[in-house]
């Protein structure tokens, strides 16, 4: 789950990190009211789940309330890398003497937590990593040990931060690690972490991704689920508990298992088609789940054909076939369907499907054959 900047700052504040006072606003008037309460000057910042906000004109300094009105009306509705800005964060402007970068994430190769700290903040860390890799000080933290103060101090020294920044940064890093671990985050990133002219360390931006698998021990995370960026199709699939990712093509894909679903998307592309989605219905493939999946796909206006790719493991072919037949009785489908059914008792399953086959419900013996047929049908309808 990706957090907006303001949610990330509120999250950091719970762990005692220094963030600016601010308010979120959904309209221009709300933005102006917020700025009036906070006192100018303020920053008007677009809240979107993507980077590059500054370059896109999504972050503006406002000296006066009139400036706030101008900037908020420019930024609200702005399209930043395909994300339309629906809310802005108004916060007290900060004076900056120096900018740093700090983050924690999981290093999957080392199977330890990786902390990165750099005296070169305010620019994308990927750029620093390419142009000046020595400017990033890395520390690997064993989750069993955690991060202690001595390690944090050595780490800050390795990053060559100026003397004035050391104490405040050590403090923030220890709190950032606590937020990362206790908050079950996949990523916590501060860029920039700033030193003010008065010598204070302050969190000026927040990028936080939380582990959706941890919600059972974080009841408050349900609120973040509601602000995830999903298109209409993804929202509908999410409501039905389906693993769905929207794509741009015309062949709707339904498969059981994440790997097989990914593979199905690949094969549709390989035979010259374009998949409309990734959809994993999990192991069971019963009528209920299949009907839900067909509904989601059928509501996608770009879909011209549907490819159902099921491999029976523990779930037997006849159960899968009965599930498909029952689902088709419940949902009226506008596009032709191609089914590939393989695995346990596939023959029995195919026998059940046989009497239902027609121009709009076809069966193919292999994954590749089925993909070719689905693509042909999708293109035939487009002509």
């Amino acid at each position, binding site marked *: 789950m990706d957090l907006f900047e303001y949610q990330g700052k509120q999250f950091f504040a719970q762990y005692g990190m220094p963030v600016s006072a601010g308010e979120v606003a959904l309209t221009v008037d709300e933005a102006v009211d917020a700025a009036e309460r906070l006192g100018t000057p303020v920053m008007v910042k677009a809240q979107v789940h993507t980077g590059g906000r500054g370059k896109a004109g999504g972050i503006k300094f406002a000296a006066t309330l009139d400036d706030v009105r101008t900037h908020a009306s420019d930024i609200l509705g702005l399209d930043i890398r395909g994300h339309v800005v629906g809310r802005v964060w108004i916060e007290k402007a900060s004076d900056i003497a120096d900018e740093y970068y700090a983050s924690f994430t999981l290093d999957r190769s080392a199977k330890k937590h990786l902390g990165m700290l750099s005296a070169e903040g305010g620019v994308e860390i990927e750029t620093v990593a390419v142009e000046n890799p020595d400017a990033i000080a890395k520390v690997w933290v064993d989750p069993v040990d955690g991060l202690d103060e001595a390690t944090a101090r050595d780490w800050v020294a390795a990053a060559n931060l100026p003397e004035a920044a050391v104490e405040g940064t050590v403090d923030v890093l220890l709190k950032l690690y606590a937020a990362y671990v206790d908050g079950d985050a996949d990523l916590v990133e501060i860029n920039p972490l700033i030193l003010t002219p008065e010598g204070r360390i302050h969190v000026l931006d927040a990028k936080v991704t939380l*582990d959706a698998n941890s919600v059972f021990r974080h009841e408050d995370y349900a609120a973040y689920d509601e602000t995830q960026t999903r298109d209409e199709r993804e929202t509908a699939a999410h409501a039905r508990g389906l693993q769905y990712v929207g794509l741009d093509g015309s062949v709707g894909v339904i498969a059981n298992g994440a790997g097989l679903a990914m593979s199905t998307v690949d094969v549709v592309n390989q035979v010259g088609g374009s998949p409309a989605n990734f959809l994993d219905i999990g192991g069971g493939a019963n009528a209920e789940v299949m009907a839900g999946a067909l509904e989601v796909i059928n509501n996608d206006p770009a879909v011209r054909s549907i490819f159902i790719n099921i491999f029976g493991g523990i779930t037997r072919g006849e159960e899968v076939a009965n599930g498909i037949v029952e689902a088709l009785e419940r949902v009226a489908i506008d596009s032709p369907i191609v089914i590939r059914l393989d695995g346990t008792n596939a023959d029995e399953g195919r026998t059940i499907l046989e009497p239902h086959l027609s121009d709009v419900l076809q069966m193919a013996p292999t994954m590749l054959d089925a993909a070719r047929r689905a693509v042909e049908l999708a293109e035939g309808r487009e002509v």
Partner: protein
Amino acid sequence: MSIFVDAETRVVYQGLTGSQGRYYGLLNRDYGTRVVAGTNPRKAGTDVDGIPVFATVAEAVAETGATASCVFIPAAGVHGAVIEAAEGGVEFIVAITEGVPAHDEADFYNRLRRDHPHVRLLGPNCPGIISPGQCNIGITAGHIALPGGPVGIVSRSGTLTYQALYELREKGIGCTTCVGIGGDPVPGTSFIDCLAAFEADPDTKAVMMIGEIGGSAEEEAAEFIATRMTKPISAYVAGVTAPPGKKMGHAGAIVSGGKGTAAAKMDALREAGVRVGLNPTEAGELMAGIVAEL
């Protein structure tokens, strides 16, 4: 021969009294797996279809000589279950459960390495392991696997693992052991662990590997293959056309910051001498070719 599990492996099911644990535990027993015990502190002294239930893994090990455990515990309890199994004295732990928080995985992975270095963990979020004809621990449909070898299989994906077993069986090719390492960010057992074990297993003559997008496990495996493997390998990597920044079902399957793409993984494997198929069927055909040349 086989790797990690064989006909002698004695398995305790943590969560045998739950619906999933009972279903798959009994299926595994029907297959021939030595399912010797279950655990549930509230149901100690009872049995599940004749399988005795103990309060803890330690008791199950003491009473039944269990050597492996299979975890069918809900995600919130998996951390505790894995540590209990390791402390209880089994040498192999298979964690089937999906949805385990990544921080829990990172923690018990490192705890096991430090305090129980002789214990192997497989998973979480994996289909399990099968040495066809000998032992099946987890949710793989046993009958789709042809016993005997000469192929070993290691896979990050569940259904694609079944697909691989099935394609080989259709071609009359048997399997020594098929290991589903799972699609999570911190798998207990890696590709490299399995490749090394297959390399050392005299009955495994070739290895089929199924990867997917995300992380760098396939690239690391490629390096290992180039320097340490003598046995031929065919591979498939799912997610060639996956868009960056979107999790494709598995928690670990995400292309982020330009890293973890299928194309890079396939290139690395090809450079290491692996025959890479563009879909599971092609990888199966490549393996059939390898087996014919053996």
